[in-house]
């Protein structure tokens, strides 16, 4: 799996005191790992810092609340990792 996933998994493990072995690309941060929205702010902070991006949590939350997206799209870790890679690519793309 990508180094992005490893970084994210390590952040989750350290932030939420979850055994690293239990965190897989298929893990749902909320449903499988039991991370609540407040703990996820600490994870988002660490991800923002690690990758120099800003996870668009407000937009994601709005989309989920409006029924336009499922939580799986953002909070299953392989999908979260893909979103992070997209944000990193967008940041380095020429304006």
């Amino acid at each position: 799996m990508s180094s992005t996933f490893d970084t994210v998994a390590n952040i989750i493990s350290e932030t939420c005191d979850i055994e690293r072995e239990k965190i897989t690309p298929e893990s749902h941060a909320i449903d499988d790992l039991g991370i609540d929205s407040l703990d996820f702010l600490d994870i988002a902070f660490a991800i923002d810092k690690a990758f120099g991006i800003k996870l668009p949590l407000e937009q994601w939350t709005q989309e989920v609340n409006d029924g336009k997206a499922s939580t799986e799209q953002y909070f299953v870790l392989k999908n979260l990792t893909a979103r992070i890679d997209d944000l990193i690519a967008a940041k380095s793309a020429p304006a």
Partner: protein
Amino acid sequence: MRLEYFLLIDRIAELNLDDRTIRTDATVPDKSTIFEGHFPGYPLMPGVLLIETMNQASGWLIIGLTKFTRMPFFAAVKEAKLRAFVTPGQKLSVSASIKHEGSGYTMTSAEIRHEGKVVCSAELTFRLVEFPSPDFRISMEKVAAEIGFPMEALAHG
């Protein structure tokens, strides 16, 4: 400080939106029913109220940065350190700076000084949401005017 109204900041001394910092003044009242219980004959400002004081300074900074479009609600406190007793009548300088501006949340570092010495400090997290109602925002603007919130700074931020 108007403890009975939970309004703990007396005056905004400086709001710098470029540096993302705020400095405020707050004087602990000489008398309060709180001091009758905390503690009898030995009045001390409760640590939780000092943390709330840092929250409110941070909140005004965030409101300035978001130009009154978001209301910050206290979500978490870390590294809270109460380094010295704070007693009635003391004049406090309360400052805060932005640690991280996320999407829908902001983290700050804040501290309170008395006569130049840090008496407490903390790392604070806030959720940012739209004002629950127009009246809520109006009430916040009224408090802002009372404590000298520099509305003109918003035009330059």
